[in-house]
């Protein structure tokens, strides 16, 4: 079974990159657009910091630039799972039929068929460009270990958020339209741009334990900058949350599929 799914995954990954030769201009345009978009937020921080004596609660301008760049990294990870967001639409249109009539896991298929390989690459390239320039310009020297651990933390954090997002999407099976709820959840992603550890304790706890935005932004950046109190602690929390939500997700998915089969989309 593993061979079958890894072969399929490989094929889907190849498919997600198929447009590369056709749309070379688009590729570079969207990187340019990405850079411009992030530059705007960098301008935001520059403006704010010019009034706060060059520092915001221990976060210097270089720190905030790196925080901004990390939003691209989490974006790059999430693009591989864009299919989860499409789940409600696919369910309501009965598009799971094409998987249920075949020896294939519908969940795997609906995520695999919508992987945005190109978009992920674009985000990653933009992220590396900004991070690279920032480190060179501001003289930031992350260790290899710091980079790897921060990436790991980011990925685990993304997994948790994706599982939660996916679970919300699954509510479509019972409640039809959950788009507003999804939007509300994604709105909390706005916190990604801001240093979590500056917020009041209640908000901080919420963003670490409930909707772990901290794990995809602030904490990986702190690890990257070598200023984390305890990278292990952050990883631990993220891992526990990932496990919890994986269980909830799996359980809900079984129920959701049974319900789809009872209702026919």
């Amino acid at each position, binding site marked *: 079974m593993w061979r*079958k799914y890894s*072969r*399929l995954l490989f*094929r*889907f990954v190849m*498919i997600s990159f*198929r447009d590369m030769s056709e749309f070379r201009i688009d590729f570079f345009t969207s990187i340019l657009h990405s850079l411009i978009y992030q530059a705007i937020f960098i301008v935001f921080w520059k403006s704010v910091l010019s009034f706060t004596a060059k520092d915001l609660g221990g976060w210097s301008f270089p720190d905030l630039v790196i925080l901004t760049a990390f939003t691209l990294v989490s974006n790059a990870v999430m693009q591989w799972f864009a299919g989860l967001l499409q789940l409600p639409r696919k369910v309501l249109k*009965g*598009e799971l*039929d*094409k998987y*249920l*009539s*075949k*020896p*294939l896991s519908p969940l795997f298929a609906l995520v695999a*068929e919508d992987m945005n390989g190109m978009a992920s690459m674009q985000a990653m390239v933009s992220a590396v460009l900004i991070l690279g320039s920032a480190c060179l310009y501001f003289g930031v020297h992350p260790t290899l270990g710091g980079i790897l651990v921060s990436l790991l933390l980011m990925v685990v954090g993304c997994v948790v958020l994706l599982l939660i997002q996916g679970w919300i999407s699954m509510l479509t099976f019972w409640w039809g339209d959950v788009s507003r709820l999804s939007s509300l959840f994604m709105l909390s992603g706005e916190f990604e741009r801001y240093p979590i550890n500056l917020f009041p304790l209640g908000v901080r706890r919420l963003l670490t334990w409930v909707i772990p935005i901290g794990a995809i932004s602030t904490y990986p950046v702190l690890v990257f900058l070598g200023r984390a109190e305890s990278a292990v602690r952050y990883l631990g929390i993220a891992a526990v949350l990932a496990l919890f939500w994986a269980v909830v997700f799996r359980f809900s998915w079984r129920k959701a599929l*049974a319900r789809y*089969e*009872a*209702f*026919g989309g």
Partner: protein
Amino acid sequence: MQAIHVRNLSKSFRAPVRDGATGILARLRRFVVNPSEELPAVRDISFDVPAGEVVGFLGANGSGKSTTIKMLTGILTPSAGLVEVLGYVPYRERIAYTHHIGLVLGQKTLLWWNIPVIDSLRLYRDIYGQSAKDFEQRLDHFADLLEIRDILHMPVRKLSLGLRMRAEIVASLLHRPRVIFLDEPTIGLDVLARLKLKRFLRRVNEEEGVTIFLTTHNMFDVEELCRRCMIIDKGRLIYDGDISRLKANEKHKIVELEVLEVADDRRLQGALQRCQVLEQTATTFRLQVPSFDAVDVIGELLESCRLSNLNVIPPTLESIVEKIFQERSERRDHVAEVLQTAV
């Protein structure tokens, strides 16, 4: 062992009540209480299909035929009853079962929309675990047979309906399924395309012994392809038997003709009097002729005019269904009568 074995199969759906009431209070009430009702789609149907048979499953839209096919292919779970295909219970042994079936849905594509057809087929190959050699062989064979070789590298969204249908049918056969299900595969296709499709299915059935389960609401699709057909109406199986018996039941035939020149007007009028004229223009007629009289009347028409076109329209599903219900109520009345007199 039967390929398909169905006993007392039923399916009902739950849907929110739409009573059409407007006004803020009614809407709020619906919002708070959220009432729902049961809508039966398939009621207590039973049938068996032996391996290698081509069976037509006829029904109008909303009659429950798509629901039935979905239950047979594991997409839907039944509310009650038993369904077994090739010895599997579809919705319970989905992964093992689906290796042996193929499915074509006329109204929905089962291929991936934005990628070339060949990529979809290769994905299928990996999904079914087919060997590369077998895949290439089968593809070669069918691509030529159904003339889709040229479009293999086009994405599905760019294909016309006819080409897309052909691609979907190829996709459903590559992995050598033992049963294939086709739900309204001819919808939107012109007469020639339907004919070609029928011929192809017959050939596949003869060469490979694949059991074919075909749903449609058009009698033309099943003529000469299926010997046996079933009719479903409002969720119930109202006919299961030989197709010839059905056709023999046709009370009327519809005849369409285009007249170039009238040679013998008296004879023409005589023939027309034996029919009911449904439509008439300066040069065309659409007539309803009693079946027993049809051959005669057509003969008269042919002798009395020079025709540029003559069509005998096959019976429509609706008229057959009507006929069946009519027969049933006649029989009921007759039985009631007999019982009455007996008493």
